[in-house]
């Protein structure tokens, strides 16, 4: 850690040199040991060493975008943590949810959030949503070596596009491929079930509350069929993390707000464990 200047030291010349407004670039010159991408691992799979985060879902509605994540982290067959947080605000108008190796993913999101804030402070303006999504892709690409040894990080990124006035969702693969998703998407081990659920529940005309409910339903379905995804924990009152971003900015819904939605969802499942029924033909839909 000797690379971080202490309070009594003169700022090194590299700090005073104008140039990159990217924090990751600056770190790679100044303190490469702080960057996840510069670490080397011994050969062999390390995938079983650390907890894994599981299911993240996101969906857009007319005035914004919502992202939600379950609270479980697993290590093999063990539940490593039952109240982990996997959805993080990355700046005022964007957030990222993480699936994959939890430790690396949390560090990557922290680096990404610092990167966005750093750019904003140095340039005096925020990056476009596409610019943010591309920066995240670059960070993921830097992790490819570790991904090949079982330490993959696959985030889901969502942000409010001020120019297009709509919420947007981006998914990634381990090589840094960036794909824009329309309407809704899910990543992580329970994503197949969550996506199937959202296919039946999602509609274009959902409002914010409807969108949140659809996502909590999808997480319930994911937890129903995937052992690594945690459902609403009624005994401990642990509910999904839900982050809503609109033109006014982003905010995490309070536990009370999510509990209200989750209680409704669970009450419905008490009547019908498989959840709401979708109509068989289009005409009767809604």
């Amino acid at each position, binding site marked *: 850690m000797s690379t971080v200047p202490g*309070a009594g*030291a003169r*700022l090194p010349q590299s700090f005073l040199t*104008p140039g990159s407004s990217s*924090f990751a670039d*600056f770190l790679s010159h100044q303190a490469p040991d702080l960057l996840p991408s510069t670490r080397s691992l011994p050969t062999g799979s390390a995938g079983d060493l650390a907890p894994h985060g599981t299911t993240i879902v996101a969906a857009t509605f007319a005035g914004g975008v919502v992202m939600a994540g379950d609270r479980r982290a697993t290590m093999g067959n063990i539940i490593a943590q039952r109240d982990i947080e996997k959805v993080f605000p990355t700046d005022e108008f964007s957030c990222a949810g993480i699936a994959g190796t939890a430790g690396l993913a949390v560090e990557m999101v922290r680096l990404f959030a610092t990167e966005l804030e750093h750019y904003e402070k*140095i340039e*005096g303006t925020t990056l476009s949503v596409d610019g943010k999504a591309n920066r995240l892709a670059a960070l993921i690409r830097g992790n490819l070596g570790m991904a090949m040894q079982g330490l993959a990080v696959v985030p889901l990124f969502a942000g409010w596009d001020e120019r297009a006035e709509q919420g947007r969702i981006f998914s990634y693969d381990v090589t840094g491929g960036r794909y824009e998703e329309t309407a809704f998407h899910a990543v992580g081990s329970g994503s197949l079930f969550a996506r199937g659920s959202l296919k039946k529940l999602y509609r274009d005309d959902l409002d914010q509350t409807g969108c949140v409910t659809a996502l909590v339903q999808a997480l319930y379905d994911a937890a129903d069929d995937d052992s690594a995804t945690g459902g609403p924990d009624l005994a401990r009152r642990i509910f999904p993390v839900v982050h809503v971003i609109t033109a006014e900015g982003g905010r995490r819904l309070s536990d009370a707000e999510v509990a209200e939605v989750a209680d409704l969802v669970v009450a419905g499942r008490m009547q019908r464990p498989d959840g709401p029924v979708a109509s068989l033909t289009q005409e009767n839909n809604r």
Partner: protein
Amino acid sequence: MSTPYYVSPEQLMKDRADFARKGVSRGRSLVALQYADGVLLVSENPSQALHKISELYDRIAFAAVGRYNEFENLRIAGVRLADMRGFAYDRRDVTGQGIAGAYAQTLGTIFSSAGEKPYEVELFVAEIGDEPEDDRIFRLTYEGMVADEHGYAVMGGAADVVGKHLKEHYRPGASLEDALHVAVAALGHSESSDRVIPADDLEVAVLDRTRTQPRKFRRMTPAWLADTLSDRGAETPDQARAEDSAVSAPPANSGTDDPNDPTDTVSGSTPPLEDPLTGGPSGVPPIAPPPNAPPAPPPAPGDD
């Protein structure tokens, strides 16, 4: 052979200090003011692009007067230091005192090193705490001195006049609107008259404890400023100054030709340089001589 002059260290330092002080005093003043919910920073700055006040970290702001490119370098260095410390340790571990200390060391070293030009800047590093008593305003001068200011602080051109006005009118614990009025009136105050600074020419930002986001820095919009300051009289803009543009203006006509003045840019009756090829007076700019034949390509390795 000429004898080298002896310059005493005292004189050397005094000359450097005079040089830096002169640079700082050319610019307009900047005021930092503690109010009920945080710290208010106000400056008269007609430029919309070149900020004198900006955000360093969650609870820390930066303000500067003097030479733009020099304090901009310091600002970026401060952002880098803050973000790096916050990333390596934790957001709470980034303190105004730490950043002010690093600035002091940097300015002090540059000021006393013979090879470097002293920075012509003065800085504020302002930080807010959870309570008004925890608010801090650090003032840094070109030679690396740090002062911990209380209540209000002024730096820049007319600092003494503005400071005197503030001393009479500053009230602790004022609302944001009242504090802004006091600060703007002080900036427009001079020995001879009081000027109403146009709301459009003000650069105003606050560190606001009451913001819900972790980042407490907020830049005031022109609309808010115009609305809040609409109760003043007719506005009088300041005359243009060199600091209003990033690049210094090209040298103005330096007057009559003076062969003894090496910085003189007027040629007067001196004939222009002769053409190097023809020897006659040149009408067009001299051109480069034709290049020689291109050198033979180096032999390819492993060709023997």
